[in-house]
């Protein structure tokens, strides 16, 4: 008997441990446990910790991840109010709100995903059908209803999800927008045409502006020159007018004035060492006649 005592103690310990495991369970942080007695759900435990239970087959414990899960719908075509096809992908964050109901109606997160998917698709189509394309994308921010559409979808999905599946939809959003492939080709065509037009516009604007600047410069230049020419003419005229005053001095004896002028010209012309062959008739060389060239006395 004594030989078996240590073995017995170990055996008893192991058995006790095993028994303990059958009547205890833990709920982890971020988990929810639903306790069913003979298949019927009796309570849900969200608080983490150690709890007591009846072993199977009396009670069975179901553990669910109680954290927020993300679900995303397919990138599908939806019709807007103004008859435009737009591709929308909606995602949502959900968590278990009513654990017991969740167990009964849904049973697993995978099922929850597919259930919610259907719900979201239904309300996505319904909501987007009430809004025009321009409320999703628009360069005028006041025309946008992006947030409103999301909120409306969430508000529509939430009560249904809660009632039917015991799920709380915590957030919902549009992940991406797109256009059907047939339309994208047209869009590219339009984009190309738009860009070409813009490029043309830039070029012609540049040309026009350049021409304008050059024309302005030419006209300015002409103005400046015209004014300067006018001013110069005036100065010359002033000079001539002033000079003319002095001419009156020659009125005293015009012939004398002429004579003096001839002398001047003669001297200037024959300054250089040159050969001169002239008739004595040529003025002022008529002076070379001598006596007869003298001015007549008045």
């Amino acid at each position, binding site marked *: 008997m004594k030989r078996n005592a240590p073995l017995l103690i170990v055996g008893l310990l192991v058995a006790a441990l095993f028994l303990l495991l059958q009547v205890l369970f833990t709920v982890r942080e971020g988990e929810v446990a639903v306790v069913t007695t003979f298949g019927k759900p009796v309570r849900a435990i969200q608080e983490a910790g150690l709890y007591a239970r009846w072993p199977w087959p009396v009670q069975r414990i179901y553990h669910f991840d109680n954290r*927020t899960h993300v679900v995303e719908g397919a990138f599908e075509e939806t019709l807007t109010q103004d008859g435009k096809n737009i591709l929308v992908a909606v995602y949502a964050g959900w968590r278990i709100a009513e654990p017991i109901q969740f167990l009964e109606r849904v049973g697993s997160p995978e099922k929850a995903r597919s259930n919610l998917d259907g719900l979201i698709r239904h309300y996505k189509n319904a909501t987007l059908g009430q809004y025009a394309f321009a409320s999703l*994308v628009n360069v005028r921010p006041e025309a946008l209803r992006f947030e409103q559409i999301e909120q409306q979808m969430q508000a529509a999905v939430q009560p249904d999800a809660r009632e039917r599946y015991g799920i709380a939809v915590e957030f919902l959003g549009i992940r991406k927008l797109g256009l059907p492939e047939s339309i994208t080709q047209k869009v590219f065509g339009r984009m190309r045409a738009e860009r070409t037009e813009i490029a043309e516009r830039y070029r012609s604007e540049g040309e026009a502006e350049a021409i304008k600047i050059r024309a302005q410069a030419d006209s300015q230049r002409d103005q400046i020159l015209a004014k300067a020419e006018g001013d110069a003419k005036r100065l010359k005229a002033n000079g001539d007018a002033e000079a003319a005053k002095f001419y009156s*001095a020659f009125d005293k004896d015009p012939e*004398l004035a002429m004579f003096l002028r001839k002398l001047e010209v003669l001297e200037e012309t024959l300054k250089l060492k040159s050969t001169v062959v002239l008739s004595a008739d040529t003025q002022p060389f008529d002076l070379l006649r001598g006596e007869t060239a003298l001015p007549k006395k008045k």
Partner: protein
Amino acid sequence: MTVSFRVLRFVMVLLLVAYVVSGVFIVRQDEKAFVLMFGKVAGLGAERVKGPGIHWTFPRPISDIVRVKSEQVQAVESATFAFAATDPMQLAAPGKEGYSLTGDANLMHSRWVLRYQIADPEAYLFRVRDNRAVLLRELDHAVTKSSGRFAIDRALRTDIEAFRGAVAEEVTQRCQALGLGVQIVGVELQVVAPPRAVADAFNEVVAAEQERSEKISAARGYASRAVNEAHGQAAKLLAEGEAYQRRTVSEVSADADYFNKVYTEYVKNPDVIARTLLQDTLRRTLAGVENKFILPDDATGKQELRLLLNREQQSPWTVKKPEAPPN
């Protein structure tokens, strides 16, 4: 019998000690940890989060340790709106290539990186199942929403920073509201591009804009040169005019002065004065001329030839009977 019992007791004590020691755990510098005792977070308040260092708790299955990298700046990349780099002929198709819609219903590609840090480890671990999946979708959501407000020119070229800023603001706000326990450090826009099928057209716009500013700048250059030249020319004309004016006046006034002087004397004795002037001039003038041939035309028909030879002239000249000069 007693021996085996003692051995057994020894082994059991050893096992117990080993078991207890296995409850020691180390939290590294860049980590934080939680101890879940029977699933529940152990400790109260600040005690709940275990910082770097050596700690002890009850070993499994009593306690479990959960760690999280709290110091590292982590990144979530979004290629949702990007095109695959492989096939250049591939046009945008849903599923194959991603894009976003712009405010003017055009398509645009972009690639983003969201950088974040875990600010609240407990919230990060126990509130959301897949934080990175949520972050990615929130990032994409922000891009979709912001993209739909910007015209493609602005998002692509002129207001890229405003676009990136709008996305950053939106995603930061949303993540705050969701209580993910993360701090958004930054949002990067790595690539933004028009669809490849129209990239050429977009480049053409940039080139045309360049051309426009070059043309205008060339025209301005011409304009300033032309006007400057004109000013220069104008100044020259004016200077010429002034010079003419001065010269004319001074010349004529000088002439008038001279005349007046001569006249004063001339009046006293006209004959003498005139003759003197004439002779002085003749002398001065003809001294400078090398060869002089003056052929007089006398009314009597006689040819009178007067020759004044230069002083330096050596060889004599033969006189020929000249013909009547033409009138």
